């Protein structure tokens, strides 16, 4: 395979929710979070801290949950990016979203998309996750409204419903 040369970083394509999207006139330092929200019209991943602390920008990169604010967008070329919009459209996270709404796990809702992505990821890998595993999996997602109890309840409700 010939070496891949350095390429100009202002135009590239990203595969987002299984669709190729063209990014143009970009700056090399833009994060995936910025590109999703400001260039591709996908505001589901939220920007609360831009430093990896809050998890509200969680997305799946090649099936692995990461903070979109810590991914350089030009480095996501060639990877499959799934955002909460993709999970919503496919219905894959519908029961998680419904459980959060029903159980009062959503107040201002700012953290919710990040939680949906993180919970989706956890339950796919570990459907029977126990209390500790759930808490650890969600430890990178901050919510300043609910106090977490109702969010954890929603996870348990989804686990119960899926098991039955």
């Amino acid at each position, binding site marked *: 395979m010939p070496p891949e040369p*350095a390429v100009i970083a202002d135009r590239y394509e990203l595969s987002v929710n299984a669709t190729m999207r063209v990014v143009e006139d970009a700056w090399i330092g833009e*994060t995936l979070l910025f590109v999703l929200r400001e260039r591709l019209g996908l505001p589901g991943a939220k920007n609360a801290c831009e430093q990896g602390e809050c998890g509200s920008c969680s997305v799946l990169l090649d099936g692995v949950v990461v903070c979109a604010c810590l991914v350089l967008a030009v480095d996501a070329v060639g990877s499959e990016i799934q955002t909460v919009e993709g999970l919503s459209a496919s219905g894959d996270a519908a029961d998680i979203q419904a459980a959060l709404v029903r159980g009062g796990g959503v107040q201002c809702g700012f953290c919710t998309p990040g939680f949906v992505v993180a919970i989706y990821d956890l339950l796919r890998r570990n459907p029977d996750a126990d209390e500790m595993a759930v808490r650890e*999996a969600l430890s990178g997602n901050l919510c300043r409204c609910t106090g977490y109890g109702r969010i954890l309840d929603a996870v348990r409700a989804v686990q119960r419903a899926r098991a039955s």
Partner: protein
Amino acid sequence: MSTGSTHDARGAQQLRVARPATLDDALCALREMPGAQLLAGGTDFCVEVSFGSRRPTAVVALRRVEELRGHDIADGHVRIGAGTTYAEMGRGALASTLPALAAAARTVGSPQIRNAGTLGGNVATASPAGDTLPLLVALDARVRVRGAAGERVVALERFVTGVKRTVLAPDEVVVDVVVDRCRGPQEFLKVGTRNAMVIAIASVAVVVDLDARAVRVGLGSVAPVPRRCASAEAHAGEAIDWGRLWASEAALARFGELAAEACSPITDHRSTADYRSHAVAVIARRALERCIRHAT
């Protein structure tokens, strides 16, 4: 001096990125674009960009580089590729071979951070609070780097020269880290304000080497660089009853005191210097106690 950028016909600056799949191509891209910045998991890099302290004009992204991935567990040593993530350090054979590295990795950030952040990035960032560093220094880790002039191997203790300072040249890439295998229990403990998403106020790695009948200690966040503690190590080597793998309460307490004496902590927004010293005494003692209890 040339930079990684070129200019188009209109004179606009063109910023370039390379996404090499091999180490040779990565080194070639670095040569082609002097001033280019290396990017691994992005967990330090992107924060610096977003907060304006880093303005890349050219980037060499390393996460596709084959030679930086994976690890080898051989009879005498373990080689860990620079691109190994914390999530990978925390599972499988690597975790069972180096349980204190797995324990340290599990305390880093959050699952999202552990899925992206890498060993090479932690070593290259060389923060006093870098959570892999106490164990690596305790195990006399060697850092293998490669650049235009070839390859060199640098002991971690010499690789990190100060707070976020290393001997790495701009054209060099950290390829992997190698540690000798050591038969016996090991432990990593870290003090912070909560269990997740916390930068260490103080951290300690204790390794009990049953074959050498020796104890190794690495301290983090209590000096500009990760630090060994010769006096605590010598004390433990003598105080432990190696036949039973047991030590008295007084010997354990003395071990903690000696570890605290080896620190030169600062007061900052996370902690006072006094608290750091106190914390080190507690966690060093506890780490050794857990090691020798575990083996009974």
